[in-house]
């Protein structure tokens, strides 16, 4: 397929060439900011410094709120912690006084640890509960600062760290903060546009699918909390220097709301949006002095308007690309011939292999599972061989989708085992399936509407990335290599299912049938040994069903074992090598399509009686 490879690489080059356009707004803003000390007085330099420090924190918080979708409303707790830690260490109230930069670094470490503590409840609690718990943290930190008089000076407060020259002048300090803000912007942008950023929004918007892809929510979130906590605390230390003297009432709830609203006004999943939001909200009180008392009220009104009218924020409003009209009568035409490239990779001896080198089957043995008092699976035995298409059909309530969910690890059976060859597949751990090469699609497409089609498909290959979080942060070579590989693989997958022309379109603009094929492309990224399809033909036209059938058959021929749960009897009988019929949670009949179609018990189970 040299043509297809060349096309994919050409696509990539075009993309790189266009890479400058997104950077432009940032250059403009930072350029203007750098000019501030030259053209205005100290007062405005201080305001600009404040904006830079706030943006430093908001950039970090953006990963938590905007990308991970965790509503940490009380994040000012990190600012408070950082400010006090840096100030206390610099003043020498506990240990001998540290130089200012060392104090800032220590604040960063404290912030990282505390950030994890504040964020951990997100892994267990629902959204509202987590939001309230962060508010609690914010209150607690302020209370402790107030009470621990010997260390923090209580209500009287203490001086902030003094930086050495040349950073002890307004413009010197400003350029330091601006530089740090710029570095942080760059780092968070690297994360946002890379594997980790995509994994975060997958967890945010499609958490069930994220598990199937192999994304470990806990590990991902803890990593982000560590990073964001450290940056926020450093911002706190700088804030203390800016204020020159801090007391507990400098860290009001209003400040927390400001940070939070900046992100929402700016728009989730964007970097430029929250940056503009932060700048606007910091500068607003300066230009509307009489409204200063009402500033929090106006922020709240703005938040309400955003939520009701433009939930996507500024970023959505300026996203002109996503408004370009799409052709009305688009047809999805897969190219099964490209599966060679997508599913194969080179083994150790240079031969071309598919995902399932060991040719192990998936087996269910005597699986029992009940919901409430009803037995959904009542002693199910099932064997899915690699390299074949295995249909699973049955009347309503027979347990088809439940069986698929047990295999993909979402449900824990009460009795029985699920094995891959000799290896036991863990129960209630869907995250482990991807590493075993088991991929799936869902009854209703579970995708990230706000991300592009290409990004959605790239999410499928998340666990194949080898760069660590730090390498992504600093855009080191391994990260860039990962991105290139993933992108090319995703473009191939899109070509294979016939969606290559919609790669840059927001996924929520796609038709239902296109979303189904997109989910399959995402699943193919794992080069799966097994592909579990949950009613993929639902809502497809007759033509599309035929093409889907061809694609599935080819996938089977390339060595992937396909489990096809379906209602469309035609499709099942056309493309399956084996068919299992379930009824009331156990196997009613098993055999080739020809055998099943005339099987008396099957017919009567379907027609009742």
């Amino acid at each position, binding site marked *: 397929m040299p043509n297809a490879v060349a096309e994919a690489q050409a696509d990539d080059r075009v993309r790189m060439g266009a890479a400058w356009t997104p950077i432009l707004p940032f250059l403009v803003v930072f350029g203007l900011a750098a000019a501030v000390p030259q053209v205005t007085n100290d007062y405005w330099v201080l305001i600009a410094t404040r904006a830079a420090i706030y943006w430093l924190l908001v950039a970090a918080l953006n990963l938590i709120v905007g990308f991970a979708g965790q509503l940490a409303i009380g994040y000012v707790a990190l600012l408070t912690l950082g400010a006090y830690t840096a100030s206390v260490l610099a003043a020498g109230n506990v240990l001998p006084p540290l130089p200012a930069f060392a104090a800032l670094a220590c604040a960063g470490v404290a912030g990282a640890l505390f950030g994890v503590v504040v964020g951990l409840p997100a892994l267990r609690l629902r959204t509202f509960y987590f939001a309230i718990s962060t508010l609690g943290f914010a209150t607690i930190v302020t209370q402790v600062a107030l009470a621990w008089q010997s260390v923090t000076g209580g209500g009287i407060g203490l001086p902030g760290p003094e930086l050495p020259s040349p950073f002890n002048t307004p413009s010197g300090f400003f350029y330091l903060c601006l530089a740090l803000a710029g570095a942080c912007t760059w780092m968070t942008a690297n994360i946002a546009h890379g594997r980790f950023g995509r994994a975060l929004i997958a967890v945010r918007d499609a958490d069930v699918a994220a598990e199937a892809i192999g994304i470990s929510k806990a590990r991902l979130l803890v990593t982000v909390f560590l990073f964001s906590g450290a940056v926020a605390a450093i911002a706190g230390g700088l804030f203390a220097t800016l204020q020159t003297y801090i007391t507990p009432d400098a860290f009001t709830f209003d400040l927390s709301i400001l940070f939070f609203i900046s992100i929402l006004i700016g728009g989730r999943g964007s970097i430029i949006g929250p940056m503009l939001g932060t700048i606007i909200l910091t500068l607003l009180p300066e230009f509307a002095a009489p409204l200063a008392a009402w500033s929090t009220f106006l922020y709240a009104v703005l938040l309400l308007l955003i939520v009701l009218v433009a939930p996507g924020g500024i970023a959505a409003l300026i996203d002109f690309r996503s408004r370009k009209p799409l052709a009305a009568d688009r047809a999805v035409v897969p190219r099964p011939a490209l599966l060679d490239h997508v599913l194969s990779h080179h083994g150790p001896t240079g031969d071309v292999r598919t995902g399932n080198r060991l040719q192990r089957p998936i087996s269910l043995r005597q699986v029992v599972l009940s919901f409430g008092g*009803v037995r959904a699976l009542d002693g199910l035995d099932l064997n899915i061989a690699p390299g074949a298409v295995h249909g699973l059909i049955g*009347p*309503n*309530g027979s347990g088809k989708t439940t069986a698929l969910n047990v295999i993909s690890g979402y449900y824990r059976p009460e009795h029985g085992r699920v094995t891959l060859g000799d290896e036991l597949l863990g129960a209630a751990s869907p995250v482990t399936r991807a590493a075993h090469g088991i991929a799936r699609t869902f009854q*209703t497409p579970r995708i990230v509407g706000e991300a592009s089609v290409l990004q959605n498909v790239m999410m499928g290959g998340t666990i194949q990335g080898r760069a660590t979080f730090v390498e992504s942060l600093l855009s080191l070579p391994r990260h860039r290599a990962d991105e290139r590989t993933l992108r090319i693989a995703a473009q191939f997958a899109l070509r294979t299912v016939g969606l290559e022309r919609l790669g840059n379109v927001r996924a929520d603009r796609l*038709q*239902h049938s296109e*979303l189904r094929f997109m989910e399959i492309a995402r699943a193919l990224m794992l080069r799966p040994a097994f592909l579990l399809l949950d*009613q993929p033909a*639902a*809502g497809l036209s007759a033509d599309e069903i035929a093409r889907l059938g061809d694609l599935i058959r080819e996938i089977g021929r390339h060595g992937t074992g396909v489990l096809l749960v379906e*209602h*469309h*009897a*035609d499709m099942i*009988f056309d493309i399956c090598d084996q068919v299992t019929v379930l009824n009331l949670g156990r196997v009613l009949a098993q055999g080739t399509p020809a055998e099943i*179609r005339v099987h008396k018990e099957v*017919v009567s189970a*379907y*027609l*009742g*009686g």
Partner: protein
Amino acid sequence: MLISAAEAVLAVRGLETGYGKLAVVHGVDLTVGAGEVVALLGPNGAGKTTLLRAISGLLPWTGHVQLGERNLRDVGPREAVRAGLSHVIEGHRVFTQLSVTDNLLLAGYDLPRGERAARIEEALAFFPEIAAKRNDRGSALSGGQQQMLAVAQGLVRHPRLLMLDEPSAGLSPVLVDRVLDVVTRLRRQGTAVLLVEQLVEKSLAVADRVYALAQGRIVLEGRTDEADLPDRLQHAYFGH
């Protein structure tokens, strides 16, 4: 024999509906005459439940739906009930935290107080088993009894058309017969019934006419006394 639009209790033309982007029902025509029992059969995922939900206003739809002389465009479930349409949804979903009597009281929410008590008694008359448990909470009833309660709820308002969505699901054969008996009694007293079912033989025994729905389209229509019906149904279910 065609039912003319004037006699029909329910006239559906070109109905299309679905869930968001997913179109499930693609242009369905269907009629139910006064006092008729019509069975709507079809394999899973055909769209039977979705069709009923559109008719009763639980889902948005396009096309034409008429209940007697009343056009149901833009009419929500509450208005549909008031117009004489009762929809007993699938899954015997009664309110388990409330008593049997309370469940029936709520079914008659919009009725004048005096009438309510009388109608409840009439509904319970169809199901002596649950009349005996009238003060028990919904959670104390078995699945079959809950299904009977759900049907009783549908009867409180003396509907012109009663739509039943898979009343046999999860029920033992004895209870299924019990429920279908009630359908026969309703037909005798002039209530039209649209019965969505999985159990083909039992439905055919109780219905006058039958439609089969597959992949969102009507693939079969006929009277239950036609001789070749079972064969035609099997074809409809299994495609070719």
